[in-house]
């Protein structure tokens, strides 16, 4: 067998724990009350376009994009707007949100709810991008970057590749895996639409070999679509990192910030996002549902759920058999990059890829020791940085040296900290450094 492709430097192999990879996606019923935070994407918060007392349907727009880098928000339920108030969200802060009391389940008539595959798309690139923008699509891999912005790369950039992130390198999570098994054709149609909108002839779908069934079905179905190639990848975290994936699939390397993938001719989208592009363009369905993996070693019924956004996490946890007694951390996302949540009342949002209940024994960090200078963090860093050094520089507030040692290139994947034999909080320090150095850089640029 030929050598499998992967990214070139660093990386680790965390235990996979894909407990739900063989679990068919189940549909979770709508909640009694749905909560829609206005800020669930990168960029400006959305602006409410409904008022207290308004009646809405499933798929009614309730907030409009607050700027170019922003996204519309749609109701996932039918009912009455109860209030616009601040609620606790995944960031741990109270932020403004639209709260809707659910009555029935009435959908907007424009949405095509049939299961039938719609292959044909006769829209122009401009029309496609407009539909994507109107549907409030954001990247579903976790960063929640508005999709239409990526679909309009800088004028001087020549895009010749679309790379689809179907790696799902976070342990535990299986929502992308299930989506590929259950809706491969829809993904491929969505990808073809993307290719048309960007006028790109070649696309590569990166899938790790730990998902042989997904590789098989996607490869088989892709034969009917021109220019789409499925690339089996060697398993290594963080292969789903944007830069790592482009490196693995095309051999191109995106230079340090402020460069973006478009600078090397590539646009990357997550496979779930591609599916939502299909739904938006072919089915007139805006983004208000997604697949969420609800999992954990002690969870009674770990599962993949199709969830209406705005549903409180408590309802997902309940469906999976309740919060296990031994739970130490409730995590939105996976164990490598997910955020710990402080309450089950937090609503599901566009970026919720998984809910992980981690046992307390795995949640508590071990005692920190002296750095023994083993250099394992240097070997693990997929960006070729020196985490031990960046952490120390941040600890000593040596921002100038931190910047020259490329602290801003850190992608916060957590490889360094997960390999450290002395249990040092390397990434905590590096994040502090990034925040400070980022502020210094912005202030400097503002002066110019």
């Amino acid at each position, binding site marked *: 067998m030929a050598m499998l492709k992967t990214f070139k430097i660093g990386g680790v192999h965390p235990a996979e724990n894909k407990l739900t990879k063989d679990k068919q996606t189940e549909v979770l019923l709508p909640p009694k009350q749905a909560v829609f935070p206005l800020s669930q994407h990168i960029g400006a918060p959305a602006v409410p376009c409904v008022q207290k007392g308004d009646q809405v349907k499933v798929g009614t727009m309730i907030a409009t994009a607050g700027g170019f880098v922003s996204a519309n928000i749609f109701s996932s339920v039918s009912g009455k707007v109860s209030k616009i108030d601040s609620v606790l969200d995944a960031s741990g802060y109270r932020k403004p949100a639209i709260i809707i009391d659910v009555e029935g389940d009435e959908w907007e008539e424009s949405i095509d709810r049939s299961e039938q595959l719609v292959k044909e798309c006769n829209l122009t690139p401009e029309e496609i991008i407009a539909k994507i923008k109107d549907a409030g699509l954001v990247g579903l891999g976790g960063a929640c970057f508005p999709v239409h912005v990526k679909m309009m790369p800088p004028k001087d950039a020549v895009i010749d590749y679309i790379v689809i992130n179907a790696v799902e390198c976070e342990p535990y999570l299986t929502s992308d895996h299930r989506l590929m098994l259950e809706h491969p054709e829809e993904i491929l149609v969505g990808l073809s639409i993307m290719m048309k909108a960007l006028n790109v002839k070649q696309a590569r779908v990166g899938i790790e070999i730990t998902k042989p069934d997904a590789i098989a079905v996607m490869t088989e179905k892709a034969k009917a679509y021109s220019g789409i190639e499925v690339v089996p990848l060697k398993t290594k975290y963080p292969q789903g990192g944007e830069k790592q994936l482009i490196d693995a699939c095309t051999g191109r390397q995106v230079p340090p910030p402020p460069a973006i993938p478009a600078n090397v001719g590539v646009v990357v989208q997550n496979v779930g996002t591609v599916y939502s592009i299909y739904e938006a363009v072919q089915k007139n369905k805006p983004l208000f549902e997604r697949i969420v993996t609800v999992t954990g070693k002690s969870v009674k019924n770990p599962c993949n759920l199709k969830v209406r956004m705005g549903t409180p996490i408590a309802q997902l946890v309940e469906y999976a058999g309740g919060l296990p007694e031994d739970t130490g951390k409730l995590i939105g996302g996976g164990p490598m990059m997910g955020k710990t949540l402080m309450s089950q009342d937090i609503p599901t949002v566009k970026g919720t890829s998984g809910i992980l209940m981690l046992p307390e024994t795995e949640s508590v960090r071990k005692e920190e*020791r002296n750095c023994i200078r083993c250099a394992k963090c240097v070997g693990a860093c997929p960006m070729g940085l020196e985490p031990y050094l960046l952490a120390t520089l941040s600890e000593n507030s040596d921002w100038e040296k931190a910047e020259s040692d490329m602290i801003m290139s850190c992608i916060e994947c957590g490889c360094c900290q997960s390999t450290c*034999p*002395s249990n040092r909080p390397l990434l905590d320090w590096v994040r502090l450094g990034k925040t400070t150095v980022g502020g210094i850089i912005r202030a400097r640029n503002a002066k110019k």
Partner: protein
Amino acid sequence: MAQKLILSQSPHYHGGDSVERNMYSVVLALVPALIASFVVFGLGALIVTVTSVAACLLFEWSITKYILGRERSTVSDGSAIVTGLLLAFNLPSNLPLYIIIIGALVAIGIGKMPYGGLGNNPFNPALVGRVFLLLSFPAKMTTWPETGQLLAYTDATTAATPLALMKQAATGNADALAQLPGIVQLFIGNNGGCLGEVSVLALLIGGIFLIYRKVITWHIPVSVLGTVAVVSGIMWAVNPEMFANPLYHLFSGGVMLGAIFMATDYVTSPMTPKGQIIYGVAIGFLIVMIRLFGSYPEGTSFAILIMNAFTPLLNNWCKPKRFAE
């Protein structure tokens, strides 16, 4: 909701590596060489090793507790055992107890703890101890017992080591090289020397184990050994009468022990592959230069300590290969 949830930044996963895992892996990797030393030097090797390890543990424990006043002792992390073993491995098996104890005191009390313990010492503690003894007790530290005296300790009869013969050859004694033991004898360890350095085979087994367990990488051992082979090979090609062939240099003295176990010490070696290779090449070069042209027959300890001093500079100069570079 009754349950209190723990909040922290990611990652929420740890691979399970620990200081103990690495240190005890080194201890395990030293076991073949330890067994070889018992076979070759018998009782003496056992006494020296036990004394050295026990003394290192005792000094680490008492300094942590009574001088540094720390609540948590680091004595169980395994690093003092490694220092004790490596110090013993660098001593002749007929060395009196009090000298070993002084060596352990210098290694732990001067080489390691004053800087803040494991992780902060600039020089390899075991080598600091050994070189202190070499300079303080030059006669006792440079007479080695003959092999095969299994019940002897300080009363063992001594003999010239391969390195001493090589030194004689390099300084003009044309017959010396002819007296060298066969290369196979050197490889399995049936020759005089410090108690842990003699069996190349046992040390290589330990080295392969460490690389397999990902405790160390190949960069330092390969660059040290490669450089010793190349530089001594050039000298041998120039004058085979005066200089021993490269295999003799690789298989005798402390080169193998130094390259695999001493130069790879985490704390005192560079952090990036590029830095490690420069460090290894410099050590290899210095070893051969000291052996052939210095006043000591062996230069491994000095070479490693000299390069320990350059480690901070190498860390500053040699950055890892950055992404997209």
